């Protein structure tokens, strides 16, 4: 399973990517939407884990653009904010919606569910 992690907090994505790799999951990461689009153009991913609140391109917008490029890709949203708007948008747009801080086991389980329903 190949995963794309996108979050503006570099410390978070790098640690998360490394932890996933320990568990046999190949994870690429980026800290901005543009970088993520570049990566997605170059590689194929099974699932993208996107932070909703990011500078320039929000997670929701990024998802829309990625969808055009890779229609088969699945999405999981992350947020540190439990606001009503986020919740609605997140639940409507993505198959899953997780609130930070994450439990890595829960994240892996969710990714599995999303990829192989």
């Amino acid at each position: 399973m190949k995963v794309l992690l996108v979050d503006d907090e570099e410390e978070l994505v790098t640690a998360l990517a490394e932890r996933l790799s320990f568990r046999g999951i190949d994870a690429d990461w980026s800290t901005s939407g543009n970088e993520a689009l570049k990566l997605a153009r170059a590689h194929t991913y099974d699932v993208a884990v996107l932070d909703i609140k990011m500078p320039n391109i929000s997670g929701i917008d990024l998802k829309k653009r990625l969808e055009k490029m890779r229609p088969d890709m699945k999405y999981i949203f992350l947020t540190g904010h439990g606001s009503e708007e986020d919740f609605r948008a997140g639940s409507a747009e993505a198959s899953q919606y997780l609130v930070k801080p994450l439990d890595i086991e829960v994240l892996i389980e969710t990714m599995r569910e999303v990829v192989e329903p």
Partner: protein
Amino acid sequence: MKTDAEEPRRTLGLRPAFWGGREGSEASQKHSLNLRRLWKTTVLIMTVVSLAPLVVMTAVDYRVTQKSVESELVLRTSRIVSNTKRAVEFSLLERMAALDFIVQDNRFQMLTDCARLEAILDHLRLTFGGFVDLGVIDSTGRQLCYVGPYDLSGFDYSDQEWFRNVRDQGMHISDVFPGFRRVPHLVIAARHEIPGGGFYVLRTSLEAEFFNTLLSDLELSGNGDVFIVNSEGTLQTSSRMHGGVLDTIDLRVPEYSDSTRVFETPTRDGRAVLIGYAYIPETPFILMIVKQKAVLMEPWRDTRRKLIGFLALSLSAIMVVILAVTTYLVNEIHWADLRRVATLHQVEYTNKMISLGRLGAGVAHEINNPLAIINEKAGLIKDLFSYTDRYADDPKLLGIVDTILKSVKRCSEVTRRLLNFARDTDSETSPVDLAATVTEVLGFMGKEAEYRSIEVVVDIDKNLPKLETNCGRLQQILLNLINNAFAAVDDGGRIEISIRPSNADSITIQVEDNGCGMSEHELTRVFEPFYTTKRSRGGTGLGLSITYSLAQELGGSIDVESKPGEGTRFRVTLPLAWQRKKGTFDEGSAGR
């Protein structure tokens, strides 16, 4: 006890609820009206406006009626006096005319014939009555001839006053006097010219009784008394109440007047009397009629009693109506005001909750991101230990990392709860996991239960139907009830929260404690806004009133049972599916 009415309970009694006020309470500070003063002012104005015209009109009517009754009495008395005066005057004139006729009919020489004179006296007695004797006196005062019961022939009258009177004025009518026989009588004498010079006087005595006969026929109202007095106040006739003939009356002799007069005066014993009198012209006589005012006014007093009775009745009726209506209206204002303040408070409270929610959400968000980094870094450290051999397997370090991860988890629980709380303060409905909600709310109470060793029992029916309602409101209801229960129980007490289906489409949430309980009186007011027994400990008296309206907003109801010293049981019944009513107060929009 079940409260069906939406408004707070009203206490019945003579003292209206607004009278007491709530000094120093939050409620009274927000009241813009001084209801007690409003009540007083309204009562005063209404009383003056409605009673004053009534009283004035009654007073005017009273005076007018009294005046007309009195003038009627005066008029009637005056008429009787006039008529009687004319009758008395006429009967005297009649007798004088008779004497005149005798003079015209008989020459002087014939009258000095005593036999002839005797015949005339007999005729007079037969026709008129009352004549006692008859005498002819010459110009020197010597009686030439006399017929009657006494032997008065040759009697010399020249030095008597009446003779001088008749000589100078031509006529004389005397006062009544007892005379020789002790029979009251009066004397009439008239001077007659003798053709060819000189004069003589014809004199007769009349029994005073004929006056009595004249007057005794009169029917007088008001214990009336009619009599004749002379100018010295000596009674010329008998009277009913003022003495017999020749007694002196106990009243002042009225001043001279040539017409009939009526006046009112008090008697010596203090009773008011109405006196009508008339001077009978050319005689010393005064006709008097005396009536008792009190007796005369008796019918008026009856009218007056009715008038005053009616007035008193009207006044009391109006006062009762004014007091009742004003009290009712001001009380309504009082309750409306109370409701207004409560609503205002509720809006404020809701806004506060929303602000708190937002603040919490903001804080949670800010904390969540660094927390996520800590989480991942600590996780990574743990992974480095677990997945690689690069670092020695150090159980102590692993323990430290685990502690960090556990703490992060605890923090994230807190932020998650805050975020949930913020999210749920609007009016959306969603499926509610009751067990999770109860746990979450108990989480808000923190470790209080543990510290105070309060036993909290949660008993949720396993087969509960799915509940769909507003999570935020439900949380608030539970929070308020559980908060109350915590406040009511002593350390070591017990709180039981149970949730069961109550019928096919509703559930019942019951929060029971074994705390201090409430008295009958407290129970009746427990849902009333601003009613609190915890004022000194910062209670606003709004918790249960808000809980009450929240339950109503969710389409449910709340009731309470309690016994002092034994505990309290609140029971909230909620419908399984909440249909938000249109037009209900939307607390979520109030602050936006």
